[in-house]
């Protein structure tokens, strides 16, 4: 069939019904819905199952044996099971407008796009729906526009955050993901940033559209906003920082980066700063020894734990001084 809608499910009993209703009400009906349940311990799965009949065989529910902690593995599993020409990763608490899939599919086919990227959409806060841009420095187009094929320009745009990185901003040709082995990395947070970076570098036809088709529910309990002890906060952000760097480093070893090595540092720097921003408050609440200990523990199986810990502590110290000076 034409489209696979992939939805990672975790404890969304209050929202999944509305989400699935919005898919059921599509003007375009040639789709399958793959729900990957990450061991929800509320009523989510039951609610999803109650939609089976209405979808008439187009709804598949996969249950993972153990909770994986975030949406990466559920999405990867969903992709593995999908059979549509295109995939669309949706979040379990969001909705799409009735013409979403039809619009996305038409644009994708006409432009022979690997990716159709929605730079705008709606935010649902409480009962209010407001228009929103998904990236800070979007192109603010009025017509569908093919992004430049120049990778250098794309990366520079990426570094200026002119692409939103949420998975649901993109409608993607399945073959493109499979052929390029584009998976969500299994990190605690920022997996979408890394995933988006690969897509932006590898997609040939990347179509940017202004249509508002996705409704994102604003929530206060997202992963990045949960309150943690400083020690746990540091460890939380260190996970994507370290794994993310290795992921990026592996990716940035092809021909393009061989010829344009400067981007390796720039992209690395961009990503690290993002994770550091997440840890900022925790960093202020720890002294140097505590920070050192935490980092050593986090790298306990590496010979270079003391070196990494030391460099990290010193860098943090300099960064503080530097921002004071500025």
């Amino acid at each position: 069939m034409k489209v696979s809608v992939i939805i990672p499910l975790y404890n969304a009993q209050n929202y999944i019904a509305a989400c699935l209703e919005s898919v059921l009400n599509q003007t375009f009906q040639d789709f399958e819905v793959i729900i990957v349940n990450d061991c929800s311990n509320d009523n989510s799965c039951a609610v999803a199952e109650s939609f089976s009949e209405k979808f008439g065989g187009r709804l598949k529910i996969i249950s993972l044996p153990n909770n994986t902690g975030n949406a990466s593995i559920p999405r990867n599993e969903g992709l593995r099971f999908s059979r549509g020409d295109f995939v669309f990763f949706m979040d379990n608490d969001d909705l799409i407008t009735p013409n979403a899939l039809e619009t996305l599919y038409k644009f994708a086919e006409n432009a022979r796009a690997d990716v159709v990227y929605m730079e705008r959409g709606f935010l649902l806060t409480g009962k209010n729906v407001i228009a929103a841009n998904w990236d800070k420095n979007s192109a603010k187009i009025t017509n569908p526009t093919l992004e430049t094929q120049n990778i250098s320009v794309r990366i520079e745009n990426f570094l200026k955050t002119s692409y939103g990185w949420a998975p649901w901003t993109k409608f993607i040709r399945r073959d493109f993901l499979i052929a390029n082995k584009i998976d969500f990395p299994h990190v605690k947070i920022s997996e979408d940033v890394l995933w988006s970076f690969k897509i932006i570098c590898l997609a040939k036809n990347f179509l940017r559209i202004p249509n508002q088709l996705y409704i994102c529910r604003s929530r206060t309990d997202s992963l990045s906003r949960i309150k943690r002890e400083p020690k746990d906060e540091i460890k939380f952000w260190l996970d994507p920082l370290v794994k993310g760097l290795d992921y990026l480093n592996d990716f940035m070893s092809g021909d393009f980066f061989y010829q344009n090595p400067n981007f390796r540092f720039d992209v690395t720097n961009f990503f690290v700063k993002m994770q550091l921003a997440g840890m900022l408050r925790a960093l202020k609440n720890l002294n140097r020894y505590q920070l050192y200990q935490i980092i050593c523990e986090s790298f306990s199986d590496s010979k270079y734990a003391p070196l990494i810990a030391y460099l990290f502590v010193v860098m943090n110290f300099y960064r503080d001084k530097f921002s004071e000076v500025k």
Partner: protein
Amino acid sequence: MKISVIIPLYNAEKYFAVCLESLLIQTFKDYEVIVVDDCSTDNSVVIAESFLERFGGRLRIISLEENTGSGAVPRNIGLEYASGEYVYFVDADDLLIDIALETLYNYAEEYQAEIVYMERGFTCGAELVPQNLTEVFWNPPRFTSEKPVLETENLSERVERFLKLAIGMPPWEKFLRRDFLIDNGIKFPAIKISEDIIWTFKLLCKANNFLRLPLALYIQRDNFSSMTRRNRSPEQEVLFWTNPLLRGMEILNDFMSEINFFKTNAPVKFAVLKFFAKIQLDFMANVFKSLEPQKAYEIILHEFSRAGSSQPALIAYLLVMNNLYRNELAK
């Protein structure tokens, strides 16, 4: 016999004869000299050989097959061949005053010292004449003594003093019991620079009787061709410093992990690692001034990946950022 004098040799034809002469005139005679040649390309070995007869069997020359790049491996090999009760590592450019070995031996025996550390020495310009000799302290004067004195046995205090540079690092400042070195497995780590810092730290942690001697017995020539000063391109410079940094921290970390004191005093362990890292990073800072961060990152990333280090990207990034901030703050 009583003393093994071990001399790593590399292209020292200018001054080596004087070094060997100073050994021949020692008042103390019960010693052997082990010269370990690190593939010198000048006349050093010829000069050494010309002394064989005059040493009457006490001089031995070992030639390594491949150049190892620093004094570490030659010294370790010399130690393997040594059979004296005491060992003394001397540099081929330098020399001893005539009563050096006798003085060191007597004090070592009197205090049952595993290590006799000479707080003072002489430096000398290119020409060996009295007016060129200057007596110096090898560590800050506030740490020196007027009489021979044993260093505190308290490890915590010893480490604290070490971190304040109360003890110098060069091997030739120390006269050592051979079985102390062997029993504790204390060798020079095979890194190109700063191996003496780690070696000295190990000595300090393991020795019971560590005697400070306020006598100048060794003459060090001003070293124009030191390892730290050779001309290298920025890339070579980065490579030169990053390997000792990585390996050195690893070695120190492993060493301290076996000692109870450090297991229960994590902040002190941190201070030692920081001390070592800071020295390497200070040396590296100049290099980074002439390289763009992107370029420096490339070089380090490549080197670390090649050397099979884990987290090469993270280490490379942290190194580059540290230097970037240091340089920016210095402005």
